[in-house]
Structures are given as structure tokens and as C-alpha cells.
């Protein structure tokens, strides 16, 4: 409650502050009238402001006229006299340099210095800096190189931010929420880099309208389709081929974007090879994703867009006549976004979307069959109203999400008999939030942001809650429409930015966050088959406190900026499965009986050095951190390291632009993750049984890897591009998992036990070709 008090005091100060000056809003637009975020505006009166995500900034002045200089990466500087009596709209002109200069950040260093939260914004227009993996580019792989973000093992598309679990990261595409973003068990994300225009990643200093997850938010925005002329690209890589099209529908008013990608290995092996060929049987894998967007300019100040998404994977595997399994997961979503510029100082964004995620795992061993499936559906609507008033940038928001979960349905079969082990019924829930946020420019040095988010959760009937552990015991029945359980959370947010001089600033932030849905990883690697569950009367909402303190410095001459940031985070109500539990396969009558709950904490130091201009660009990100967990039922209640506890994590990303070539590289060096392994063995019935260490008591070896790529844009064919990339250049065998192998027999009194490390990728060269038109 202390922090609530601080927030209210800040609001009080805000309401007291008022001055009689001319206040004007400057809207900065790009060549296609898109709002330019992160443009810097400086004036002859000493103002220095940055445009917000709507391309707007406010200047207060007692004068009548101002000389302004507006700069934005990729655009020519704009310098002119403007009147302060009315709001101004400035249209910037593209710079010819744009093609020459590769920019990683869409924000200028100055903007970043004044930004009050720990966020990374990057545009994908020039996606050259994104690392390549088998010829595919992935925005989420780039996020994984940032400080404070760690990955579990190779090929793990989820990421862990400052000690939080994978489920604590929201990933949104045009406001649609996703429960799984993986292709090929996590080797790529489902988001084709060609369809994404901008990505915004936040790990602290959240505005109040951002919430629902504890550790981070990644907002991906699809490309606004070209409304003037047809544009497109075709690409073909080692694993998949893709097609992107932007088609004007009504010239200058509306356009359509289609981006489709599909793997094609199965098309070759399934059609060419004989039915029982080993390679054919082991490569029956396919993935695809489709993003469609239609955007329509309703009026000069209002636009509506519709986005649709479909993506999924399917794998059929048969090792012998008696053993086979199938895994598939599928996501589809559709939504509408409406933006209305009510006045130069006020604008409104309204969105509504629906989506489903279903997954299925089945295995057959001779006459036995098991089928595990789960399903989530959601409907989400919300709005954010932005208003700039004097030195205050206000945001009011609200949203409502209805979700239906069917966590796990298990069907067993023996021969012709089928049994449904858990007739999983749909669990209906609602999550809502209202928020108010103010970012206040106190003076040219100090900027204070404060916000309050009030969130809540409801579980609805029909639902049966069994008492005790025997299914024959009485249950409490809730009818349709009954509230089974409700929760509320008050989430104050404070962020302060103090500019020491034009080159350095201090940032401080506090965030309180609540999360009402949970992912319970069943195994030691993260898989799409992990189960999402909602809060219930047993599963209480997760919540976190996070404190950060950072120093940011820009060396304009070099130009290099660096930052050092410290963070501490406390996590409550963390969810795990009871030891040895298999989802839906226990005798417990309630689906949530097999969960256990505990606490977590994480603290660390993050260092970043970044050079985002010039022919050589790149960044070095280093994180020193610890992440611990404490569960009463695990390790006799003793604190243990989380499995993704990485003490050191270093990422170096660099690019060099030389004539028609562009060279880039990524170096990753990190401490091994924690794991549980057998530490002792014993014999029962002449079989070797292992006894495990304390939870996560052991460490994987150090992880390190270097990737390189070279992109050639032939000068005589500037529309085409060849990408040559090598993943894991020096063929480091980073273990993906470790298992033990037992050879020999007890009867012969001779056993040979070895730990075997399985690594995913050896050195992998690849080539891909892209043609733009």
C-alpha cells in the first residue's frame, strides 16, 4: 500500500501543476502519413522533446514563434519557424541515405535517454540485423539477444525475462493474444519477419494500460499495406518458402496484406519416398502460418484494420509397426482495430478480437492408445484513449477478455475399447482491467510517470468442485452464470526519468503486476504441449513486485550509447506440477489437484552497449543475475535455482555494411541452465533405477555459439537478395538435454552407465533467396 500512497501523491502534484503558457502539439508524419514515433524535436528556446507512439509531442512556451528542428532516423531533418498558437502537423521527407544506413533502433539515442521505461523498440523494415536460422529470420530470436532475456536451451522459442517463466511474457500481434508462438517445437516463431513492421518489447516501467503478465510484453504490429501500388516478395529457404503481397484495394484508401509461409520438406519426402521408408516416416512434419491484414482509411483522421492469423504444426511419427505418435497444435485469431484521431491532442484506439488455440498429442503402442488434448478460446475487447494536455500525456484504458479453457482431456484405448479418462469440461473465465496513466514532463530534466491499473478475474459456472481426493465424495455444483471464484488486483506503476545532461540520464521504476492465467510446464523442456490453466479457487493469481534502477549514457560523437540497469523482482503464487504428475492422468478428481504453489525471486545487473548508426552497427548485452524458487513440496521447502537460472548471459550482435554486401553475426555465451539429474542408482528386479538430485541442483555446461550471415543485394538486380548464413559456425555441441545410457546386464555383473548429451544443431550452413517486386 506504500506504493499506492506514492502514486496518489504524484497525482496530487499533477493536479496542482498548471501554468498559463501557449501549448502546442506537434504531429510528425512520414511520407505515407504514418505517425513517426521517436522523432526528436528541439527548439531555439531550449526545448527537447520526443514524439510518442502516435507521432506526437507537446511543447509549452510563452513565446509566439519557435524555430524547430525535427530529426528522425531515415528522414531528412526538418527545420522551420512555426507558430505556437495552433497545433502543427509536420510531414517528413525520406532520406536517400536510408538504404545505405542500417538502423537497428527506430528510436534515436536521445529518445531512448528520455524514455521512462525499460523498453526496446525496433522496426523490421530493415530486418537485416535479425539473426538467421536455417535461412529464416525471426523477430523473437532478436528479443532473445536482449539483456535480461534468457533462453532455456537451443531451439527454445520461449524466453525467460528477469527470472519469470515463459507464461509471464505476453506476445501480442495487433492486440491479439497468443498462447503459443512456436513452429517446429520452438525453432522459429510463427511470426514471419516480412509481415511485421514494428516490435515493442517492455520488461519494466510498464504504462498502466499494459498488464496481464508479470515479466514482459512484446507487441508486434503488422505492416500497413501499401495503398498505392502492388508490392510483394517471394522467398525460398532451406526449410520453408514464403510469399508476401500488398495489394491496394481502393487506391490511397485501403489495402490488403497477405503473408504466407509453409515448410516443404514433407511435400518432397511424402511424395517421393516409399511408404515405409525410414526418412519418409520420420519427416512427416509440416508447419505453416498465414497473416492477412486489410486496412481502410475511413476518414483523414480515422482508420480501421482487420487482421487474421492462422498458424500451426503437425507431426506424424512412426518408429515401428507397434509405436507411433502424432502431435499437432494450431492457433487462429481474427481481430479489428480502429484508430480515431479525435483532435490533435486526443486519440482513441478500440480493438476487439477472437482466437483459439488447440493442441493434441496421441501415441499408440501396439494395442494401447493414449490421446491428450487441450483447447483455449478467447474473446478480447478494449480501448485506450490518449490525451495530451499541457505537460501531461494521459492514457485511459480498459479491456475485457473472456476465455474458455479445456486444460486436458485424456482418452485411452485398448484394442477396440475406448475410455475417456477425464471428461474435461470447459472452464469459463473473464479477466478485466481499467487503467489510468500519466506521463508528466515536470521540467526539461525530470519526467515522472505514474499509473494505476485495477484488474480482476472471474471464473464462471458450470463447474463442479470435488471435495477431498476421492471422486465418489460430494461435489459443489455451480450452474451456468454462477461466479465460482473472483479475484482483484491493484497494480500501481511509477517510473521516473531524470536527465543529468544532454548525454546521460537516470531511470527508476516500480511495477506491481498480476497474472490470472498460468502455464504449467510438464517436462524439463518447454513444449507446445505444456498446459495453460486459468486461476481457480486453488490456483491463485500470480503476482509480482519489480524495482529497477538504471543509468543511461549517450556518446553522440562515436555514436554509442550504453546503459547499466539493476533489477529486483519478487514473484508469488508460482505454479508447478507435483513431482511425477502427468496431466489428467492422476486419480485426482479436480484438474488443479496436482499443482503446487510457491514463491520466487530474481535479481540482477544488465549492461548494454549499442551502436545503431553507421556502416558498423551492433550491440553487446550482458546480464548477471540469479533466479530462485521456493515450494513447500519441493526439496523439503528449501530454496532452489529455477531451471532457467543463468548467472552470466552475454549476447553480441553486429552488422557491417559494405557496398552490396551486408555481413552480420551473433555470439551467445551463457552459463548452463540448472537441471535435475540422477545422482545415484540402485537395482530392483535386476533393473537399474536412478535416484535424482535435489531439484535443479546440477548445471548444464556453458552455452556458446556463433552465427554468421552475409546478404548480397546484387547491384544489377536490386530487387533480389541472396542470404548465405551459417548457424553455429564452429560446431559447438550445446546440450539440448542429457540422459543416461545403460549397457550390459546385471546378470553378467557388468554395467556401463554413461551420461549422453544430445545437442540439436551442429554447424548448419544455409542459403535463401528473396525477390521483391
Amino acid at each position, binding site marked *: 500500500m506504500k506504493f499506492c500512497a506514492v502514486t496518489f501523491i504524484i497525482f496530487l502534484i499533477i493536479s496542482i501543476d498548471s501554468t498559463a503558457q501557449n501549448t502546442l502539439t506537434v504531429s510528425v508524419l512520414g511520407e505515407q502519413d504514418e505517425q513517426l514515433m521517436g522523432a526528436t524535436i528541439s527548439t531555439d528556446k531550449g526545448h527537447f522533446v520526443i514524439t510518442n507512439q502516435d507521432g506526437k509531442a507537446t511543447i509549452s512556451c510563452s513565446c509566439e514563434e519557435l524555430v524547430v528542428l525535427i530529426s528522425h532516423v531515415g528522414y531528412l531533418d526538418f527545420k522551420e519557424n512555426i507558430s505556437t498558437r495552433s497545433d502543427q502537423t509536420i510531414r517528413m521527407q525520406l532520406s536517400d541515405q536510408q538504404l545505405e544506413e542500417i538502423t537497428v533502433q527506430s528510436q534515436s539515442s536521445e529518445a531512448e535517454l528520455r524514455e521512462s521505461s525499460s523498453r526496446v523498440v525496433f522496426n523490421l523494415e530493415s530486418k537485416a540485423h535479425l539473426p538467421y536460422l536455417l535461412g529464416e529470420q525471426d523477430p523473437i530470436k532478436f528479443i532473445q539477444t536482449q539483456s535480461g532475456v534468457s533462453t532455456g536451451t537451443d531451439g527454445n522459442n520461449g524466453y525467460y525475462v528477469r527470472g519469470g517463466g515463459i507464461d509471464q511474457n505476453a506476445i501480442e500481434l495487433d492486440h491479439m493474444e497468443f498462447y503459443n508462438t512456436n513452429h517446429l517445437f520452438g525453432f522459429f516463431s510463427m511470426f514471419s519477419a516480412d509481415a511485421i513492421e514494428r516490435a515493442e518489447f517492455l520488461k519494466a516501467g510498464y504504462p498502466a494500460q499494459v498488464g496481464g503478465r508479470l515479466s514482459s510484453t512484446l507487441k508486434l504490429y503488422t505492416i500497413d499495406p501499401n495503398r498505392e501500388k502492388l508490392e510483394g516478395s517471394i522467398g525460398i529457404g532451406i526449410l520453408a518458402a514464403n510469399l508476401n503481397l500488398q495489394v491496394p484495394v481502393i487506391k490511397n484508401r485501403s489495402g490488403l496484406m497477405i503473408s504466407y509461409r509453409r515448410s516443404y520438406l514433407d511435400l518432397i519426402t511424402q511424395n517421393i519416398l516409399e511408404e515405409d521408408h525410414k526418412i519418409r516416416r520420420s519427416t512427416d512434419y509440416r508447419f505453416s502460418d498465414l497473416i492477412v491484414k486489410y486496412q481502410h482509411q475511413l476518414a483523414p483522421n480515422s482508420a480501421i484494420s482487420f487482421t487474421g492469423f492462422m498458424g500451426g504444426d503437425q507431426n506424424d511419427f512412426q518408429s515401428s509397426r507397434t509405436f507411433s505418435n502424432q502431435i499437432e497444435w494450431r492457433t487462429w485469431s481474427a481481430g479489428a482495430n480502429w484508430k480515431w484521431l479525435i483532435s490533435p491532442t486526443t486519440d482513441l484506439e478500440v480493438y476487439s478480437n477472437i482466437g483459439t488455440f488447440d493442441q493434441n498429442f496421441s501415441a499408440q503402442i501396439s494395442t494401447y492408445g493414449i490421446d491428450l488434448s487441450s483447447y483455449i478460446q478467447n474473446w478480447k475487447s478494449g480501448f485506450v484513449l490518449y490525451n495530451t494536455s499541457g505537460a501531461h500525456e494521459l492514457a485511459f484504458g480498459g479491456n475485457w477478455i473472456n476465455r474458455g479453457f479445456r486444460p486436458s482431456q485424456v482418452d485411452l484405448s485398448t*484394442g477396440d475399447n475406448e475410455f475417456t479418462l477425464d471428461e474435461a469440461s470447459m472452464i469459463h473465465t473473464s479477466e478485466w482491467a481499467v487503467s489510468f496513466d500519466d506521463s508528466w514532463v515536470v521540467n526539461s530534466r525530470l519526467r515522472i510517470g505514474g499509473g494505476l491499473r485495477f484488474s480482476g478475474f472471474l471464473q464462471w459456472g458450470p463447474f463442479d468442485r470435488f471435495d477431498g481426493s476421492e471422486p465418489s465424495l460430494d461435489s459443489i455444483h455451480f450452474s451456468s452464470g454462477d461466479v465460482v471464484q473472483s479475484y482483484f488486483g491493484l497494480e500501481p506503476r511509477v517510473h521516473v526519468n531524470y536527465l543529468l545532461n544532454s548525454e546521460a540520464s537516470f531511470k527508476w521504476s516500480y511495477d506491481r503486476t498480476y497474472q490470472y492465467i498460468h502455464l504449467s510446464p510438464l517436462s524439463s523442456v518447454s513444449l507446445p504441449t505444456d498446459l495453460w490453466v486459468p486461476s481457480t479457487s486453488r490456483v491463485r493469481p500470480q503476482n509480482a513486485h519489480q524495482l529497477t534502477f538504471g543509468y543511461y549514457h549517450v556518446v553522440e560523437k562515436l555514436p554509442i550509447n550504453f546503459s547499466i540497469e539493476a533489477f529486483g523482482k519478487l514473484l508469488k503464487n508460482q505454479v508447478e506440477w507435483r513431482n*511425477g504428475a502427468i496431466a489428467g492422468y492422476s486419480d485426482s478428481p479436480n484438474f488443479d489437484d496436482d499443482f503446487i504453489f510457491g514463491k520466487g525471486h530474481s535479481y540482477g545487473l544488465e549492461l548494454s552497449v549499442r551502436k545503431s548508426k553507421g556502416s558498423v552497427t551492433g550491440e553487446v548485452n550482458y546480464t548477471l543475475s540469479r533466479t530462485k524458487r521456493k515450494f513447500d513440496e519441493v526439496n523439503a521447502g528449501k530454496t532452489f535455482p529455477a531451471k532457467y537460472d543463468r548467472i552470466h548471459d552475454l549476447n553480441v550482435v553486429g552488422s557491417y555494411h559494405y557496398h552490396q554486401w551486408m555481413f552480420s553475426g551473433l555470439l551467445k555465451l551463457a552459463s548452463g541452465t540448472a537441471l535435475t539429474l540422477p545422482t545415484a542408482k540402485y537395482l530392483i528386479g535386476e533393473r537399474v533405477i536412478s535416484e535424482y538430485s535435489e531439484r535443479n541442483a546440477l548445471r548444464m555446461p556453458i552455452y556458446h555459439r556463433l552465427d554468421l550471415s552475409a546478404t548480397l543485394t546484387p547491384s544489377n538486380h536490386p530487387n533480389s537478395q541472396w542470404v548465405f548464413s551459417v548457424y553455429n559456425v564452429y560446431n559447438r*555441441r550445446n546440450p539440448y538435454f542429457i540422459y543416461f545410457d545403460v549397457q550390459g546386464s546385471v*546378470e553378467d555383473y557388468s554395467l556401463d552407465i554413461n551420461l549422453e548429451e544430445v545437442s540439436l544443431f551442429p554447424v548448419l550452413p544455409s542459403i535463401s533467396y528473396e525477390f521483391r517486386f
Partner: protein
Amino acid sequence: MKKIWIYTVLISCGACSGLDDDQFPDVRKVVIDGYIEQGQYPIVYLSYSSGFYEPVDSASLQELVLPTARVEISDGEESEVLTLFRNTEVYPPFYYRATDLRGEAGKTYTLNVRSMGETYTAETTIPVPVEIDSIWIEVDQDVDTLGNLWIRFQDQPDVRNYYRVFTQVRGKDEKYIPAYQSTISDRIVDGEVYDHPVLKLPESFINIGDDLLFTKGDTIRIRFCAIDQAHFDFWRSLERELYLVGNPFGSSGNEVISNIQGTRPVLGIWGGYGATYKSIVFK
């Protein structure tokens, strides 16, 4: 949830010594493997666990045997201290057996082991045996020399029943071998007449093939046992551990659930079997 070795395309496997041996502490525990069947003398094997990296050869296996304990079985009225016998055909080469007390269906038996000043105790019940109604073989559709073995039995309604199945092929197996996925719970078939497929234990759990099926000409004996819940939990968790062989796609921290308590940590099982037998010839 067995093996998902679908990564054959991408996975390359390499053994190297990335983990340090000193990460593995050495704490020896007593391992108890004891059972009692109706009409039979109880048998208890005692050994020690060993460090994961410790070599397993004839000398080290001999060291892990525990032939000096005092093992006592009691049914609440009578008790007997078991006698040490030697059988070099199996491991451990020593076992403790009663010479007087035999198992009786419906009774509860307490095990008490004393060794090196420590005491280990456990309790188990021999449930009333359940008869197999019928037994038959379904010839495989593709290969007519292979067949699936089926048994039918009537489950007792309104109580939780647990079973464990063993098979022995005459002339091939020297003893009864647990079936693949040998435990059965009546959770989904409570009170029903249930047809259950019995799979032969395969050679390897990593590469399961046709060896789950029986071969034409086999004379197969079935040992069908009613067991109590703690006994079921032990074998179910042990088999899962055995089949997963450290596969990361299995559950993490998969502990074998023992029913033995001790003044020091202990591993293993003390279990009662209410057994019935039947056999069939695959013609």
C-alpha cells in the same frame, strides 16, 4: 508420454563430458525389494544404492550386497526372522526368506529391517486374488506369426482395485517377467468385465518394435496379481522412470514412490501379491 524422437532430422547425438563428476554426491542408501504372495514364503532382497558414476562390475556389485541385516516379517499375530539364502543366478546373490510363515490373502504384513543401527519398516496387504475369466490371442493383422495376448476379468465394484501382470514364455523365460506397463488401475473400469491387452516386456524401451507381441508356438503363462495402492504406486512410478530413461519430454523430478519408512532415507518396496495363474498356447 514416451519418446518423441521425432527430431531425427535435426538431432545429432554426441557424447561428451560436459558435466563434472564432482557434481554428483555419494550418499549410500539401503534398497529393499521384498514381496509376499499367498501360500508362499516372503522373500526380501537387500542391497545398497551407489553413486551414479561409480563403476558397475562384479567387484562393486558384490560390495553393494547387504547380507548382515535382521529382517523380520509379522502378520500381527505371528512373526518370523527371515533366514539368509544364497542364489548366484540372480542379483543380489543373497536373499532373506521365511521358513515357516507363508502369505495369506486378506492379511496385512509388516516388514522390519535392522541394519547398522538403523531401522526400516513397511506394511503391505495381500488382496483377495481375482480370477482371470478367459485368456486369448489375437493374431496380428500383418504378421500371422505374431499375436496380442488378452485377458478378461471381472473387477470388483465400488472399491479401488489395483493389479499387476507377469508373463512367462515356457522354454524362453526362467521366471515370471512383468508385462510392459504391468500395472492396472480400475479407475476407468470400476466394476466392469474388463478386457486387458498384455504386452511382452520389450528388449529396449528406446526402440520398441514387434517384441511387444508373442510368437506362434509360445506357451505363455500369466501371473495375475491383485495389489494394494502403495504397491501399485511404486511399480507405476518405477516403470514410468524406467521407460522414460531420462527423456526430457517426460515429467521432471520423477520420483519412485516407495512405501518404506526408515530412521535414514531408504529406497524400495515391500509388496503383497494376491496371485492367480493361467496359461495359453499360441497355436
